[in-house]
């Protein structure tokens, strides 16, 4: 679903190296870097970290929405949501594969997630309390994800950029299904409308925070921009999201929970109120409403499934032996 680009450059490149200069010339010419190509170690590490964080976000992101599959209010809504969550599993799989092209096996990345060493998008540490939250996630969280991810289709690493093309297409369906849920609720009974407003109240600020800390505080922006792993800054993307989403909320007849929100005719952008970065860092540190539950759900699935993976491996071994004998 989404990666939060707030994290991680490992060391600094050694510019004296000839290969390094050739690498940088390729980046300048806009030539994609491919798995067999030489690349600086910090570039590789940064990518593994970012792509695996993104993959983890897809997989953990299945949980808050998966929470509502069994309670979706119509068969049509149920199959759409199920297909969406299935897409997220697919995104996780492409992304782990893209990261594996950089030499890190999937199981290692998963182990890092379960050990609490790898991050995933903090937005999934919030709870989905009502059906409207499924709508709000599609509309706002996937909406923010698309804004974050479309530039990644142009990022310098080929497998990641290509994976993002397909992911972005599917995300745009997700965003529309979310808006459609919100539309039905906002124009439904008073109880449904209230459910939609409540979801917007709870998801607005976490969605705005999804773009990561402000540029002034983001120490990693610069290097990632230089490597073309990142194309726009956090604040630029956040502004784009707000500008795009405010008119949608107006069409829904819902009120964005920001008293300071206003259109600035001169800048042609919306101005918005202060973001509670305390909350952002608190949730990242592990004290969001669902951090422990989300990670535990992943660990449980992995641990309780160990005997199944062992069985499949044992069967494959036996078959290979039988083949060798026959």
């Amino acid at each position, binding site marked *: 679903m989404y990666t939060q680009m707030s994290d991680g450059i490992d060391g600094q490149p050694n510019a004296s190296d000839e290969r390094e200069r050739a690498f940088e010339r390729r980046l300048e010419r806009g030539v994609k870097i491919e798995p067999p190509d030489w690349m600086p170690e910090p570039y590789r590490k940064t990518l593994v970290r970012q792509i695996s964080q993104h993959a983890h976000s897809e*997989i953990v992101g*299945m*949980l808050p929405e*998966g929470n509502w*599959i*069994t*309670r*979706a*209010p*119509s*068969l*049509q*809504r*149920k*199959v759409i949501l*199920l*297909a969406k*969550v*299935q897409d997220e*599993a*697919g995104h*996780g*799989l492409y992304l*782990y594969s893209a990261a594996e092209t950089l030499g890190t096996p999937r199981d290692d990345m998963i182990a890092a997630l379960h050990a609490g060493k790898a991050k995933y998008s903090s937005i999934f540490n919030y709870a989905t309390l009502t*059906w409207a939250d499924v709508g709000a996630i599609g509309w706002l969280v996937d909406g923010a994800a698309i804004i974050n991810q479309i530039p990644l289709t142009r990022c310098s690493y080929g497998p990641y950029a290509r994976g993002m093309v397909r992911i972005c297409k599917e995300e745009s369906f997700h965003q529309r299904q979310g808006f459609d*849920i919100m539309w*039905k609720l906002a124009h*439904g*009974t008073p*109880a*449904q409308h209230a459910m939609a407003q409540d979801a917007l109240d709870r998801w607005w600020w976490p969605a705005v925070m999804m773009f990561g800390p402000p540029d002034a505080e983001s120490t990693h922006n610069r290097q990632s921009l230089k490597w073309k792993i990142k194309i726009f800054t956090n604040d630029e993307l956040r502004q784009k999201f707000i500008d795009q989403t405010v008119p949608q909320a107006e069409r829904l007849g819902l009120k964005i929970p920001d008293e300071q929100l206003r259109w600035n005719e001169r800048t042609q952008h919306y101005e918005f109120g202060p973001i509670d970065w305390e909350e952002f860092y608190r949730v990242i540190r592990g004290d969001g409403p669902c951090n422990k539950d989300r990670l535990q*759900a992943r660990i*449980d*699935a*992995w641990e*309780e*499934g*160990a*005997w*199944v*993976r*062992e*069985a*499949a491996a*044992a*069967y494959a071994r*036996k078959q290979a032996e039988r083949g060798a004998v026959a």
Partner: protein
Amino acid sequence: MSSHVEYVLRFGDSALVLAQQLSGLVAHSPIMEEDVAIANVSLDLFGQARLWLGYAGELEGAGRDEDRLAFHRDASEFRNVLLVERPNGDFASTTVRGYFYDLWSYLALGNLTQSLDRRIAAIAEKSRKETAYHLRRSEDWLVRLGDGTEESHARAQRAASELWPYTGELFMGDDVDVEMARQGIGFDPERVREPWLERARLALATATLDVPGDSWMQHGGKQGVHTEALGYLLAEMQVLPRSIPEAVW
């Protein structure tokens, strides 16, 4: 309710209940690829259920659509076989339940493709293609679990033994079945017993599992007498539409 409606509901409700069970497993699979696969099977079954329920509603002619039938009936009005309402349990239980059902469904749908009711024949034709794939997958897993490790073998054997008493109902006919077979709309469920047993025995043998011995066969689902599990499943599935009955979602 006419035998025709009852009959169509039986297939729809079985698909619906199993789809609902599987949908709750997505995001919790032992392997990520299995999340994709389980979601696929669940989606297919929901699709089949919607076709059956939609048709049942039309035949009934009382204005009930697929959602009215899925979300606004109590357990005693459901007509699914008991097998599909057995809890998910561990991956072995889910697999064995799926295998027993898929094999029966594949054979039953094959018979229904010959129905004189062309709508039933068409739904069966489409569903059978999907079910062929479900069956291939569940049979594959059955063999892997049975012939995998000591632990997986024990779990698969336990699941097969626990679920066996719910297989007999698949082949038990009642007045509705007789009436539908007489009209050429349905078939005598007894007809699929032998082909089912033959293939199931072979698969269990390949999986190095024992065929469970003869036992009392639980039944009643097709007539609306269910196990305790169905009430909970429906409570979860139906909570939202029942909380705001006049709402459109």
